[in-house]
């Protein structure tokens, strides 16, 4: 084992990550993409390559769960396969929301095609079957420091009817609710300008995952995916409740979590990243695939817990400019080169 290798936590992004800037990023014809293309073709669905090669990024085509899910998975898995073992030692894997499915693959708990089956099955369920929705709201200020007032606004909204905590995403709260609740949130929650956007913002075509509104989906998943061939992870896998599945974990427990609690209970991404940092002390966090969007959530978690002395956005930017960035986004060429062949 070379001491020069970066000890890395790999964080896999959620479904909404593949955006217009990713178009064309999967043209390198890797075996992973070929296998996934074949899988999609067998289902009579647009292949990953077709989606990735589209002239224009289309909301309907690229954002819809039945396409976006496997597209994001493919891009992430493809990047994970390109990590150079001479440069990087993956010591733990986590994910956000659907990214947990990808993490199952990256940790070795699922092989590529079983992971693809899981992603595709859950994604396809979204076709014409979006249940409620998810809304984003920042709980940090412009310096990425937690804002007590914004946090208390979110707490207040969570007391509204059929409104649930969906994902604790670092500096962003993801609130889930039924259609009426989402409408009310968008109408009545105090507006706030953060960065260039006004919040609350609804995630397009997303169901209220990680809330009790998904109980039926979870039951259904158990009925169609209980044969999922899960193995004990080769690399420790961090779940959305902070639990860590190690090399001797119970596969029944992983399956039960994946199809049960992961779907209907809040996904505490913040806790999972904190757990991973505080248990493994990685040199860096690698964001594969279209995971650049995870940079802000991970950075705000690091700032919240004072990781590597980070106190605000300015500290983070400075750390990123150093020779050993705390986050390596594989979307960014200069950072990607630190971890790929």
């Amino acid at each position, binding site marked *: 084992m070379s001491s020069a290798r970066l*000890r890395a936590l790999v964080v896999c992004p959620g479904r909404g990550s593949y955006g217009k800037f990713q178009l064309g990023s999967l043209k390198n014809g890797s075996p992973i993409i070929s296998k996934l293309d074949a899988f999609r073709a067998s289902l009579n669905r647009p292949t990953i390559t077709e989606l990735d090669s589209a002239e224009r990024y289309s909301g309907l085509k690229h954002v819809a769960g039945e396409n976006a899910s496997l597209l994001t998975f493919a891009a992430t898995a493809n990047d994970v396969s390109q990590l150079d073992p001479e440069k990087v030692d993956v*010591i733990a894997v986590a994910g956000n929301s659907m990214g947990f499915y990808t993490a199952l693959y990256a940790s070795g708990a699922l092989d590529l095609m079983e992971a693809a089956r899981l992603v595709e099955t859950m994604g396809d369920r979204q076709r014409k079957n979006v249940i409620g929705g998810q809304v984003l709201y920042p709980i940090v200020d412009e310096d990425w420091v937690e804002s007590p007032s914004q946090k208390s606004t979110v707490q207040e909204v969570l007391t509204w009817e059929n409104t649930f905590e969906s994902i604790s995403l670092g500096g962003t709260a993801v609130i889930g609710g039924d259609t009426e609740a989402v409408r009310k949130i968008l109408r009545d929650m105090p507006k706030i300008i953060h960065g260039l956007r006004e919040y609350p913002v609804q995630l397009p075509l997303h169901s209220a995952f990680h809330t009790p509104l998904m109980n039926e989906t979870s039951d259904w998943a158990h009925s169609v995916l209980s044969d999922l061939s899960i193995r004990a992870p080769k690399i420790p896998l961090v*779940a959305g*409740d*902070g*639990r860590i599945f*190690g*090399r*001797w974990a*119970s596969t029944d427990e992983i399956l039960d979590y994946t199809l049960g609690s992961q779907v209907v209970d809040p996904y*505490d991404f913040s*806790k*999972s990243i*904190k*757990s991973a940092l*505080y*248990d*493994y*002390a*990685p*040199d860096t966090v690698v964001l594969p695939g279209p995971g650049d969007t995870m940079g802000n959530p991970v950075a705000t978690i690091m700032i919240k817990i*004072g*990781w*590597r*002395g980070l106190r605000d956005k300015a500290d983070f930017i400075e750390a990123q400019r150093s020779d050993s960035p705390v986050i390596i986004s594989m979307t960014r060429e200069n950072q990607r080169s630190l971890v790929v062949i």
Partner: protein
Amino acid sequence: MALSRADIVDKLFVDRVSALEPRELRSDLTSPVREGASLTARQALGIFETQASSRHLDFTARRLKITGDSFYTISSSGHEGSAAVAEALRPTDMAFLHYRSGSFFVQRGRQVPGESPLFDVLLGMVASSDEPIAGGRHKVFGSKPLNIPPQTSTIGSHLPKAVGAAAMMDRHQRVQFSPELPEDSIVFCNFGDASSNHSTSTGAINSACWAAHQNLPVPILFLCEDNGLGISVRTPGSWVESAYAHRPDMAYFRGDGLDIVDAYETALDAVNYVRTTRKPGFLHLKLIRLLGHAGSDVQQNYHPLSKIQEDEAKDPLFQTAKLLVEGGWATPKQLLDLYEDLRVRTEALGKEAVSRPKLMTREEVVAPMAPIDPDAIENEVLRGIDADQRGEFWGTRLPESDRPRHMAMQLNRALGDLLVKYPESVIFGEDVAKKGGVYHVTADLSKKAGVGRVFNTLLDEQTILGLAIGAGHLGYLPIPEIQYLAYLHNAEDQLRGEAATMQFFSNGQFKNPMVVRIAGYAYQKGFGGHYHNDNSVAVLRDIPGLIIASPSRGDDAVSMLRTCMAAARVNGTVSVFLEPIALYMTKDLHEVGDELWRVPYEPQSSHIAIGEGKTWREGSDITILSWANGLWMSLRVAERLEREHGISVRVFDLRWLAPFPIEQMLEESNKTGKVLVVDETRATGGVSEGIFTALIESGFTGDLRRVAAMDSIIPLGDAANLVLVQEDQIEEAVLEMVGGEK
């Protein structure tokens, strides 16, 4: 450079595991790890990871000590079998841990998702303010989410409170209050073989047996981790077993702490016994101590090398590795990979921990010590009591309808009302139930509130205060009684080292609110002497954050008791309520029949804030500062001096001995420029020393004198008056101070 014992233990483990013969790997990890065991292979693998983590924490601590970054190197090496005990318990079983509990702590941390026990322990070692339980104030094993109240546990002083928590665990059946823990929870408490001899330990275990002997539930599992050494002193091989295997109503379990299967199976039996019978259990695990007592301890100086090597050969971590390899559950390489991975992880985590902030200001250090929120306390005092519930408690004759009465009676009524106001409150001590206390302060309360809420304890003050701490941890509002001030002293550390430190060591996350009532001071007619009329309070005055209330008359006593209870509820405050025995039944002040020391009972009196004194008498020639018996005497002397000498004496009652009403004291003193402190405690270490210092430091520049009790043990009978402050001394001092001018 010579290898340290830590290096030797480390290398020996690696060499011995490398030499193990790999077996064909089995994948059925739900199978027993060894034939006939209930411990599964998966559990055993998890325990190995915990044990190896704990071992590397010890190594990292020593490395960080060399660089000056770690302040704590007492290790858990050799005691890793406690991980198997944690596995047999639930994270909701409250655990009071001793200082070699690294493996227990890590194992419990693994049972609750999102916990980071490795990093937390390292933050504690480097005293970082980011450490989640003590905030850098001490290296302790503690955690709110893991139900582990922190303590340093160096002298077995955590056993009384562990027994206290256990004794209160099932009391909800008799009190309209339930702790926020599952109903079948038990309490766990571990300690070493040497600590088992400490009076706190023997007393606490005795108390648990005493209660169980009467069929009172005390669901506690004691774990004696017997490594055969108390620092350098050998524990006789069969001592622990001889001392504890045959105690009444306590089951004894013995296991091998070096073998996780035996440790787990025995622990499971013990846990099940305690959980189902609600009786105490004593688990005795034989194990070893590796790496010496602490980093600075050179064990070769008192322990033969051959014995050290013999123990190192018994390394429990290797025993677990051997079990796993020989069972086909893991290969030597897998275990060594994990071992090396943990080495890298703990080193990296240690590096991060070192970079974390430290406590930098005095304010930060003391912030959680004993926070007081005066407004919230006042609001709580003024919160009314439900009239119907009061009526139900007192019956047709409400106490306020009675004629004016003395302090003991008014305290009784205040306690009654507090029992109504706080359904979670409990009163206990020696003789407080049927007898109603030595001075009848708790008379009839047991009958009215029920024996579940007002109950007798055995004759042991450490147990009484430990019971209060444990009760406080579970959410109760305890009002323990110590029968006499002199009896506090054998148990005082339960306040000093435990109760008063809890918020400090837990950054305010754990609280043990209580109001300790103590009958104290001298001047008791027809009785007395050192053992019943002690006048030493110095031992309380220097406990940071401890509130000491000391009323003189019934009306103040009632209001101040309400304030202390409100502070306990609002801020988790620990208060000592020092009641002057000699004034309990006093009716008159200046002359027989004036009844000036009797007062009517007010169900809703005005609020007396903590640290708020009272001017009893206006005057312009001299100010007397006093409290309790001294106040009563001073008022009498002041009246006489006015009448006979025309001297105008101000009399100010401190009412609170901690914190002092400093601003008021200064203001009162400056009004006359002459101050006489009447101090019924001893000249040396007595309260007047603190009053003098406070006044001078506050800028008082006038005349300052005192009369105080002699530095003497208080004798029996009238001879006591020879050493105690007397009225003629007060009179003489005042005359000397103002005589020339009048």
